[in-house]
């Protein structure tokens, strides 16, 4: 974890006091916790509060008036559903798929083509990682009969880690620092990129600080922290 470089954005400190509440996709939790720390270090008057959950859950909550200033979604579709609540959004990070196999790779998976032969699990096509997985498999020309279509990446990872499945497709950021799974990067991974959008909310109670936070995420300091957690550039 690199110390947050002090790189205040263009916003003046005097406007950025008070609490900001950031609603962010669960996969951003660790990265945003660190960004939050760096942000408050840079803006001593600000207090950072985060709420992490699935993007769909967050959208439903925001639609019902959840008190948030900033929304960071895991995919563009989710941001679209929140369109009524924001003016415009900015992409701030990206993510690619990797093959996760249990530690020791017992089924000896080497390429994405091997997924057709072993017990493979994927995210359900309805959720972002599932849609991306389908695209990637199509691109690679591999037909997989998944043992299960999981609700989220965590479920895929749990089953891989416990040896329940021989392999699964997950995001690169989900496997960073994990020692119970091994990672194989598929050849076409770079062609299927998931983009993370961020936006200030129209209802933000602290719009200036919100804007400052978004700027901070997009700043070099923010991007460096995201890169530390495995995210790619937007």
């Amino acid at each position, binding site marked *: 974890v690199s110390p947050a470089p002090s790189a205040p954005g263009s916003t003046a400190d005097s406007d950025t006091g008070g609490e900001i509440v950031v609603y962010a996709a669960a996969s951003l939790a660790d990265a945003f916790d660190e960004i939050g720390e760096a942000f408050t270090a840079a803006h001593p008057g600000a207090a950072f509060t985060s709420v992490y959950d*699935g993007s*769909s859950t967050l959208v*439903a909550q925001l639609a019902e008036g959840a008190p948030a200033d900033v929304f960071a979604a895991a*995919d563009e*579709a*989710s941001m*679209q*559903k929140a369109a009524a609540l924001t003016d415009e959004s900015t992409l701030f990070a990206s993510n690619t798929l990797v093959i996760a196999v249990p530690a020791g790779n017992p089924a000896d998976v080497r390429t994405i083509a091997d997924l057709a032969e072993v*017990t493979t*699990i994927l995210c*359900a096509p*309805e*959720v*972002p990682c599932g*849609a991306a997985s389908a695209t990637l498999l199509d691109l690679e020309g591999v037909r997989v009969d*998944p*043992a*299960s*279509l*999981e*609700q*989220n990446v965590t*479920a895929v990872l*749990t*089953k891989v880690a*416990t*040896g*329940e499945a021989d392999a699964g497709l997950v995001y690169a950021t989900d496997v960073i620092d994990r020692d119970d799974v091994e990672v194989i990067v598929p050849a076409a991974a770079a062609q299927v990129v998931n983009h993370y959008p961020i936006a200030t909310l129209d209802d933000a109670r602290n719009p200036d600080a919100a804007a400052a936070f978004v700027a901070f995420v997009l700043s070099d300091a923010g991007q460096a922290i995201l890169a530390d957690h495995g995210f790619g550039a937007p």
Partner: protein
Amino acid sequence: MSAARDTGYAPRALAIPALIGLAFLILPLAALIARVEWSTFVADVTSEAARSALLLSLGTGLIATLLCIVVGVPLALFIARSGPRLAAVLRAAVTVPLVLPPMVGGVALLYLFGRAGWLGGLGISFSTPAVVLAQTFVALPFLVLAVEGAVRTSGVEYERTAAALGAGRWTILRRITLPLAAPGIVAGVVLCFARAIGEFGATALFAGNRPGVTQTMPLAIYTAFNGAGVSQGAAVALALLLLATAIVVLLLVRGWRPGVGR
């Protein structure tokens, strides 16, 4: 001694909190129904995915309930007839799966029945039996605790009377103990079935989400809820379908309810 309906002697002022309680349970449902998108409702609830999820839910839910009855009623009898200390320990053990967030319960089941688990040899994961096991695990405590309470409340006096008339243990169980505890058993079965059919977390982790095999209604609802670009309409429609089905099943069960009086 009177057969006449007796509305009891509860203070009338209790009607106020009772109504508040009832309203609190019903109003959210009404709010849900008010937001149903009727335009897509029929399509949502008649989709092939909905149908297969509902059938799977009903099937696994009923089998899980049966399993719960088969092992839960004996367990409840055993606890009810234990001394206070042993009963307290057993009750605490039974309460565990109630408190465990279902997701953690799912992980525990994975650890036990998963490929690397103690009972991994059974090869249960990703199969319909895994769904049944997950439902049984989360629903069993409800049945056990409800039945235990009922059996304990009905006491042993009638069993002693039956024994003193020469009835054997199985006869006493079948004709005295179980019928006398019937209201509690029915309540337990209802709680158990409702919990089984609504089970989501443990199933999601332990059994996975394979349409037609392990995708029960709650998983289908969750999938619909998380579906990119799809509104919550489908999720709500499916939830109402599940609800309506469960209530029909429960009313049927209640229909059997024997009219036990004292």
